[in-house]
């Protein structure tokens, strides 16, 4: 563990640009959301400006890191910093999802049964005589307060039974995403063995599968809104369903962008060596992580 030649970059404009972009992004996002439905509001321009400058800053930042790598400035030790950094970043993402999964488990195990009068706590709540017609069930189709302005869902996304399983989109989504984890692994093996063609092909296939997944997810959301009446406004089932799958879908898109960047770097610039390709490895770790989260989603949001 030698610290000799550890590359400490000189002054850089990138961080302050990133900080200003984030500032514009959050100012823009907050005022856009607060002005939703207000005629002639121009707040969204700040949001777009922040987003565009953040993307640009990230582009130049990563370009700089790649250039430094190509110039041979990074020692094995610096590479290790990137490896640890990515691993801990993924851990932070795990905890982000943990918050939403925790919410799901809490409402399913405690909040909904109690509202339905089950158990000691439930009987205390039932004694208040607030929403006495409410019966606890999951997926929760009818909300406790029927008079409030909730959009009632006719149907949930849950397991449809064996006879309809082939028309069930989540199953196809699972198959698509699990295979993409396999294809990205095959691509990795190709790269390690110095087979560039194999790497490009299988990585291309992975990006293709990512696109198919996002497309299917969009189709599922359309189905939910248009045919099932299941929306964000349908009570806690819709809330947890869209929050978990939506947040996951957003991460699939980010992972997809990462993998596409790696594909471009390989195809157009011939980056990566068979023994040295952490940029790609980091993206593939992220992709496997997104895949594992989906397996949890499939289990706890769709099946159980």
């Amino acid at each position: 563990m030698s610290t000799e030649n550890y590359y400490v970059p000189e002054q850089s404009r990138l961080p302050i640009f990133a900080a200003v972009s984030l500032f514009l992004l959050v100012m823009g996002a907050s005022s856009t959301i607060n002005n939703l439905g207000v005629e002639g509001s121009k707040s969204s321009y700040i949001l777009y400006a922040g987003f565009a400058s953040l993307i640009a800053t990230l582009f130049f930042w990563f370009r700089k890191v790649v250039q430094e790598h190509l110039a041979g400035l990074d020692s094995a030790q610096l590479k290790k910093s990137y490896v640890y950094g990515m691993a801990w970043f993924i851990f932070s993402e795990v905890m982000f999802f943990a918050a939403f999964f925790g919410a799901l488990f809490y409402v399913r195990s405690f909040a909904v049964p109690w509202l339905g009068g089950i158990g000691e706590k439930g009987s205390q709540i039932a004694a208040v005589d607030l929403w006495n017609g409410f019966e606890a069930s999951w997926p929760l189709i009818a909300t406790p307060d029927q008079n409030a302005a909730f959009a009632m869902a006719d149907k949930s996304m849950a397991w449809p039974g064996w006879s309809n399983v082939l028309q069930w989109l989540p199953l196809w989504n699972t198959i698509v995403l699990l295979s993409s984890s396999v294809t990205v692994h095959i691509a990795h093996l190709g790269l390690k063995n110095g087979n560039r063609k194999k790497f490009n092909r299988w990585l291309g296939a992975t990006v293709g599968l990512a696109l198919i997944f996002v497309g299917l997810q969009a189709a599922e959301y359309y189905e939910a809104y248009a045919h099932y009446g299941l929306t964000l406004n349908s009570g806690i089932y819709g809330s947890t369903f869209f929050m978990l799958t939506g947040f996951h879908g957003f991460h699939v898109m980010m992972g997809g962008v990462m993998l596409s960047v790696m594909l471009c770097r390989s195809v157009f610039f011939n980056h990566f060596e068979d023994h040295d390709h952490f940029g790609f490895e980091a993206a593939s770790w992220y992709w496997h992580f997104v895949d594992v989260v989906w397996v949890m989603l499939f289990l706890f949001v769709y099946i159980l």
Partner: protein
Amino acid sequence: MSAVIENHHDEHHHGPAKGLTRWLYTTNHKDIGTLYLWFSFAMFLIGGAMAMVIRAELFEPGMQIVEPEFYNQMITLHGLIMIFGGVMPAFVGLANWLVPMMIGAPDMALPRMNNLSFWILPFAFFVLLSSLFMEGGAPNFGWTFYAPLSTTYAPPSVTFFIFSVHIMGASSIMGAINVIVTIMNMRAPGITLMKMPLFVWSWLITAYLLIAVMPVLAGAVTMMLMDIHFGTSFFNAAGGGDPVLFQHIFWFFGHPEVYIMILPAFGIVSHIIETFARKPLFGYTSMVWAMLSIAILSFVVWAHHMFTVGMPLAAELFFMWATMLIAVPTGVKVFNWVTTMFKGSITYETPMLFACAFVVLFTIGGFSGLMLAIVPADFQYHDTYFVVAHFHYVLVPGAIFSIMAAVYYWIPKWTGNMYDERLGQLHFWLSFISVNVTFFPQHFIGLAGMPRRYPDYALQFADWNMVSTVGAFLFGVSQILFLFIVLKTVIGGKKATDQVWEGARGLEWTVASPAPYHTFSTPPKVD
């Protein structure tokens, strides 16, 4: 680009850049540490000014100075600013300055990300403070922002609050990743994990806690955002959700968060007591294990903040016993410090005074915490001034005293100048007396039943509130003296030696005072 690689045979090092760009573009851990420390001091003064508004209003019963709505905003912003703007950035600043020097590293592992972690903060707090001037005023729901106060009944500025918390969290997570990677990957050869200085250990554990819980906070505010603007029912029982769910998620973040604000203090105090008792720490290994146990336990005690919310009995018992278990490792630490001082050749310079006050007053805060951990007793104490007294005892003479101790202890190394010992001692005694005058009476009015977060109170609480306000203003004024002492030391003063303190041990005391802009471009030899 090759110019940026240090030439190891060349004794001459690059100095800092000139002008403003030094601070905007810097990748130097010492510059970034300085930025963090000054930022946190600015926030400490702003948050402190808000505390003065609160105490001035509470000087007498009845409404005197501010409207109740504004009082609520002050309560909320005071808490948020002191926690996220005062204490946390101060510890990150200390980590930036000290961790690389203590482990013999040339800098933090990811220097550009380090700069970004800092520069997000001024923008985040600009967004938060700008909400004071928005329609409906600033957030007014307390720093714990319980739903539905923070959702259904929140002012429109809550959206700005949510996004500002998001980027503060991003800053903390990046900072924590940087600290962990630096400690895991950048130690000089020979510094094994169990040879690391305790401040480094405490920050390794703190960084782990930060990465584990800041995303959970982000999740909580995201659900709030969805509930407020996009029709979801996470915290709305009418739709099948539960406002108590918010409290569970919040405190799953919140309890480790309070240890994030005290673990680095444990590291600091251990170093200072060792130095001024001129004895090695009584039990290094037990200290490390005590910190680890506290960190692990912090994940299973969160619901002791919500005993009165109506949890099942089994849950209340579990969280009560788990909370009391924390007293064991904490006791290990306190006895460790006391036994380190036992039969030592102690001198009481300012850092040691603050460290001794820390041990005594933090222990008082810990004991009142034990009282609050007892479920039936908590039913009485919950949401009274007793709770306010408790957490101010662990945060002000706890966390903040440790930060001041650290500044006095290491400022000769940072600036090359000794601080004015006479003024430092004056600052200590003023702070020590006023902090007790401020917060000790709050135990009494809390036990007598005065609820927290109200701008007015019943007549029987008048006397102690008046005492508390007098103490608070004295404490506030004393910190202006602190600012003066720090500025005076930065400008000049008696030159510090390299070792600075007779009993000081560790790598940071082997380099020159002030520490050169780049230290340890080649790793030092450590046995």
